């Protein structure tokens, strides 16, 4: 992006003081290139029969809305107030104490007052008050109410696509008001008018048709994994060819397609392949991948509850068709929010599956007894705890690692210790970032919830500032050079972010580190890590 300002320039222009003497309702929305994503491609919108499909441009005055668009929104709002207690209660009980204000990474990175979670919610609340409360109807603006206008609609669109639904504000809110819930509803309402962004709509369409966000067709999916198999064989001498769509396998493995597609996620994917080969050779565990359920992520979650359900249905359906015992899920953020908090409710009960038991350790995953899907770091941590993996952590000795908690596993799941336990067992140099930037206080990568497009790079770099700033601190203080994470969007987004803010750190998935440390039965002497870089102590040999 040529328009992207230099990082020091961007940093020096951040001002957290609001414009003086102006009510926020009087500040017109300015849809600025670099801060928004392109509108949805009509073709993608047609796949799921979205309403009001047409080509439109957010920068143009006319958004080509249906004549009764206000009525559609009003009715949509009414329906959701009745269907979601979270939404209704959160519309009513905010006292505007402001505790959330400086907790949002987009506010920290942009200084735009409408990025304070409380104001983002007020954008919607103001219309709710106007339409549904007596005070709003009688007192109007004095009661914080305003009618729905085209100007307001544009403001909704701009700011509901500047929230990554990370829930950090919700941790600090004395009533647990979760802006993610409000953004989710806001986006559902916008979708009633066909106002989606392309970075969400096209992956959703692809996922629906071909099984994954990137639209990788079955044969190509196999090709791509086979490419990794070749790489692994070159590095380790071991053939890790996986099973595809195998009926009667023990476990179905599903991970985000992003890791099949782009570095550095690909190395994480290699880590999975190696782990499964190890378990097959040593313990006879039979894991299969699926080309039909080849997507762990769910951009439907960023569209509407219904779309989320339509995409997620594949997981149980494929597990049933293949007759596996239970499902194992790869490293991904929002994927795991959907699995942990929505899947069983939407598409369960999964009576065709068994309560997950790790056949190698005998551990029953009680916490997944109903949903029957286990997180790969839970699985690997259990294996390590029982001494079932042969590991040589020294192979990661060239790395000084810190760990980025992804928003959804941290605040929508509580998966904090498992990845840390795994890292500490496969590597020797691990350092925690400052306490207020990790675990439940973690900061978003700035690109979550479908915002990791190219055209909104400035927004992404602003939103990722708090994370990058903490990593830079670690790099300065402890020479940290590797940022580990358990999220595919992180792996896609963080390298750009680390680069832009000049932290000098690279990005890795946890299972890439596992892949490096794992001693495969019959492997040759390894000289490089999965990236083809010489292993510690092998630098000279590599030079020869």
């Amino acid at each position, binding site marked *: 992006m040529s328009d992207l300002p230099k990082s020091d320039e961007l940093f020096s222009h951040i001002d957290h003081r609001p414009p003086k003497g102006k009510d926020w309702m009087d500040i017109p929305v300015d849809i600025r290139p670099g801060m928004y994503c392109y509108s949805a491609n009509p073709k993608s919108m047609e796949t799921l029969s979205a309403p009001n499909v047409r080509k439109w441009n957010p920068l143009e005055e006319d958004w080509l809305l249906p004549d009764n668009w206000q009525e559609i929104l009003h009715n949509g709002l009414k329906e959701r107030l009745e269907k979601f207690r979270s939404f209704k209660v959160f519309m009513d009980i905010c006292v505007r104490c402001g505790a959330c204000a400086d907790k949002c990474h987009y506010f920290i990175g942009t200084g735009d007052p409408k990025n304070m979670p409380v104001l983002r919610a007020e954008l919607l609340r103001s219309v709710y008050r106007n339409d549904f409360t007596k005070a709003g109807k009688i007192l109007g603006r004095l009661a914080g109410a305003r009618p729905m206008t085209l100007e307001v609609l544009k403001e909704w669109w701009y700011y509901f696509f500047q929230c990554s639904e990370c829930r950090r504000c919700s941790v600090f809110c004395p009533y647990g008001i979760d802006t993610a819930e409000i953004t989710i509803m806001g986006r559902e309402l916008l979708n009633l008018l066909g106002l989606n962004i392309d970075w969400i709509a096209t992956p959703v369409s692809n996922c629906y048709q071909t099984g994954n966000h990137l639209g990788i067709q079955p044969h190509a999916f196999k090709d791509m994994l086979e490419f990794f198999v070749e790489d692994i064989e070159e590095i380790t001498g071991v053939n890790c060819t996986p099973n595809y769509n195998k009926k009667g396998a023990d476990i179905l493995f599903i991970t985000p397609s992003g890791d099949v597609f782009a570095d550095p996620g690909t190395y994480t994917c290699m880590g999975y392949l190696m782990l499964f080969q190890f378990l097959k050779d040593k313990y006879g565990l039979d894991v299969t991948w699926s080309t039909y359920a080849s997507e762990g992520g769910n951009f439907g979650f960023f569209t509407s509850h219904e779309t989320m359900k339509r995409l997620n249905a594949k997981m149980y359906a494929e597990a049933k068709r293949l007759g596996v015992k239970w499902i194992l899920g790869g490293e991904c953020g929002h994927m795991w929010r959907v699995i942990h908090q929505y899947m069983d409710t939407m598409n369960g009960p999964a009576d065709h599956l068994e309560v997950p038991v790790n056949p190698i350790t005998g551990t029953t995953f009680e916490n997944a007894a109903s949903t029957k899907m286990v997180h790969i770091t*839970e699985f690997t941590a259990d294996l390590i705890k029982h001494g079932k993996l042969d590991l040589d952590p020294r192979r990661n000795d060239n790395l000084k690692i810190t760990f980025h908690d992804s928003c959804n596993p941290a605040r929508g799941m509580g998966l904090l210790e498992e990845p840390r336990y795994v890292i500490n067992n496969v590597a020797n140099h691990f350092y925690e970032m400052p306490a207020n930037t990790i675990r439940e206080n973690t900061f978003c990568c700035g690109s979550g919830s479908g915002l990791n497009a190219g055209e909104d790079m400035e927004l992404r770099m602003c939103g990722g500032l*708090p994370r990058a700033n903490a990593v830079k601190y670690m790099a300065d203080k402890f020479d940290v050079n590797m940022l580990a994470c358990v999220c595919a969007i992180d792996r896609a987004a963080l390298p750009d972010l680390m680069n832009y803010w000049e932290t000098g750190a690279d990005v890795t998935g946890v299972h890439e580190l596992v892949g490096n440390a794992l001693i495969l039965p019959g492997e040759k002497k390894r000289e490089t890590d999965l990236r083809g870089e010489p292993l510690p102590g092998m630098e000279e040999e590599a030079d020869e």
Partner: protein
Amino acid sequence: MNVKYFYSFLAVLVLALIAWVGCDLLGLQVLFGVILPYIAVVVFLVGFFLRMMDWARSTVPFQIPTTAGQAKSLPWIKFNAIDSPFTTGGVVARMFFEVVTFRSLFRNTRMRVNPDGRISYDIELWLWLFALAFHYTFFVVILRHARFFLEPLPLPFEILEKIDTFVQIGQPVISMSSFALLGTVLFLFVRRVYLPNIRMISLASDFFPLFLIFGIVFTGIFMRYFAKIDVTAAKELTYGLVSFNLPSLAKMQGIGSIFYIHVFFVSVLLVYFPWSKLMHMGGIFLSPTRNMANNTRAVRHVNPWNYPVNVHTYEEYEDDFREKMIEAGLPVDKKE
């Protein structure tokens, strides 16, 4: 001047004026001291109940607790039973600490961009401290008013009053809670006006209750320590309200208008309460991010309106890609 707090301030002044004119000039003590308080209590109770029912009518389709600690997973990983509760007991504990200690607000930090380019997030407890002090002193002040309604005064109230008045400087004894409450209201007001971002997000409905509560406390303090109303007569009225045995009109007229302004303010607060943000008092108990257990993978949550959706089935998928799949050596269900 900001219209939001100007109008709110004006509204409270007008309310005071109404009560003063009503009692001092028109002799409507029965209206302000008896009829309106009765109505206010009924409106408060019924309104509060209706609002809670209104929220409760909305369904909870998904179990969406915000987790703020390690979840229960593998047996050897220590989990956070309060911030990531697995059981109902854990949820109760989480709600208890939330309601009683404002646990989430206690996490508050303040973001700062330092000259060296580092962004820091330091502990910021003033809001938590004053919010907590405000609610507790308000609570104590309300309990202390039992003296006006219960005869004889039960022992716990007696003890509470002893504690509240243990610092004595002459007569009458000073109730610390009243002054502390006044101080916290002032703090919350000044914070709203002084901090630019908080000023920006504040609505008239954020200022109005602050002014109104300030008015209540101020008139209360004023009549106790300065105006020196006829306390015996006032008590006769308040006992009368709860025992439905009212004193004579002449007695009621002898109490002093400041008392009726105080009572009128309280009545307005009670009527206003159910229809305002003050309902956060009830709403917190219904907040799905706080009152649900983080056990969604272990125990299935049922969505009452879950409906079937169109999905792209495996059969359709295989139909789309069968040839390519066969060519790539991928297993297929139907070989044609």
